[in-house]
């Protein structure tokens, strides 16, 4: 973002604009800029290279601790429930995860927990076919909690390493649908105590400040243990996850960068920060 090396009046404002337009949120940006602005005024930061380094370090301090000691639990089957608002990329991400885990030599099973939306089950079935993994499904409009129960039971019975449960998109403000998620969780636990072991919230990189509200309410309802940031292959930067992971102490597990099975990458803090500004 900073093309000239010496700092001018505009350098700090340009930096603020870059961060805000990356969806980092005005309050997070102000908190990050305050100590840096002070250093600039005290001539402790004198050129753009130092400015960039200071900001990178500040952001790493926010993000890195959240990602330490957050390895996936050693459970068999590892039960992962995928949640999020409508259209963010849950089903597609599950397809990519299936391909990814399979590549690691794991036995994967998918559970078609979206029994509501038109052709949601068919969509996941195609991903199961594409990646060569098993899928558990019921009829349309069946109880998602029942599908989850059967899915986890089948995964256990068939010696799966990972079972991933797809859920219908829902707005965090729809109380009855958030209750439904709790019911699905309880169902998993009935089938396999302690499950789901991971609950991943999928966030679309195009989302603005509303992602904070999404994260808060999904976390309050069912406890989020990881996030996946999708559509990073677009022009949106997804900066909003910086404040979310910091506030909630929830790691970003993966980044989605496209619509194909291989378009998934493990989150890497430095690489992500570099792309933000």
């Amino acid at each position, binding site marked *: 973002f900073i093309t000239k090396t010496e700092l001018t009046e505009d350098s700090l404002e340009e930096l603020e*604009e870059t961060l805000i337009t990356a969806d980092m949120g005005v309050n997070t940006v102000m908190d990050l800029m305050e100590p840096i602005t002070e250093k600039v005024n005290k001539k402790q930061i004198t050129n753009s290279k130092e400015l960039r380094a200071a900001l990178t370090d500040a952001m790493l301090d926010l993000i890195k601790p959240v990602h330490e000691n957050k390895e996936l639990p050693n459970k068999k089957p590892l039960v992962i429930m995928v949640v999020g608002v409508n259209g963010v990329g849950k089903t597609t991400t599950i397809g990519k995860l299936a391909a990814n885990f399979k590549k690691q030599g794991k036995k994967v099973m998918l559970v078609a927990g979206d029994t509501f939306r038109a052709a949601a089950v068919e969509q996941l079935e195609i991903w199961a076919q594409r990646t060569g993994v098993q899928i558990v499904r019921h009829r349309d409009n069946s109880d998602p909690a029942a599908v989850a129960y059967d899915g986890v039971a089948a995964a256990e019975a068939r010696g799966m390493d990972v079972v991933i449960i797809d859920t219908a998109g829902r707005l965090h403000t729809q109380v009855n649908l958030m209750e439904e998620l709790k019911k699905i969780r309880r169902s998993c636990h009935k089938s396999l105590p302690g499950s789901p072991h991971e609950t991943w919230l999928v966030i679309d990189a195009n989302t603005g400040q509303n992602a904070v509200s999404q994260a808060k309410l999904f976390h309050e309802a069912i406890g989020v243990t990881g996030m996946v940031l999708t559509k990073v292959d677009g022009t949106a930067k997804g900066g909003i996850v910086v404040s979310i992971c910091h506030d909630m102490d929830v790691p970003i597990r993966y980044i989605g960068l496209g619509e194909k099975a291989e378009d998934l990458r493990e989150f890497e803090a430095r690489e992500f920060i570099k792309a933000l500004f």
Partner: protein
Amino acid sequence: SLSDRLGSVFKKLKGQGKLSEKNIQDGLKEVRLALLEADVHYKVVKTLIAAIKERAVGQEVLESLTPGQQVVKIVNEELTNLMGGANEEINLSGGHPASIMLVGLQGSGKTTTAGKLAVYLRGQGRKPYLVPVDVYRPAAIEQLTKIGKELSIPVYPSDTETKPEKIAELARIKCAQEGCDTMILDTAGRLHIDDELMAELGRIKATTPPSDILLVADAMTGQDAVNMAKAFNDAMDVGGVILTKMDGDARGGAALSIRSITGKPIKFIGTGEKSNAFEAFHPNRMASRILG
């Protein structure tokens, strides 16, 4: 709310005759924060604050309102004027059958909106025909076909082996044969930076010129709304916008950014997943929502 925040900022303004540049500076800081928190684009906010400042400075502090309320009133009017005042109806002239093309980023709500639009048009006495032209997303054609079946609206039997522009061409003929008068083309979600897919939209438009092209955008879109809206509009010259997922708690500042960068009207909003969750856009209600 912004009114409360401005209330405390302007507490010290009691008894002052006019809104001066100095005394509204802090008020404008609050307005700027509110707009940024609402996802209005950084540059759009800058332009807006300048316009509001110009309108506010020198105004007599009204008897009936506190200075804070007065600034909110000015901001509200400015936002409402920005977002309203253009032709809000869908353009159905100039084609037999008439046709509406839905475009936008992945997951914004196009397919669901296609069903809603069909129901809306049927309510207006038209005979809609749904045409799936998304040949990429798994089960996309099935999705729209199921929606059509549920709503008793005819759907063209698309298949993934045919090119989208060819599907549109063939559907146009079939649409008339079915006795329908309005085609709704549901295109695949795509990135505005995907040159190939943006070119595909151009080909569909050229082959079966639509009466209206509507950009379907998610109400929770952040700062990037200007980039994608500008790109889609530059490529397609859209007729208007449909803002979806307005039933959530997103402030919806993207509405302002999109309108500001394209000059195109927001015609409708999506307020849920069901086929009747479709309403006309009200600029004044949107302005209050954005301001929080």
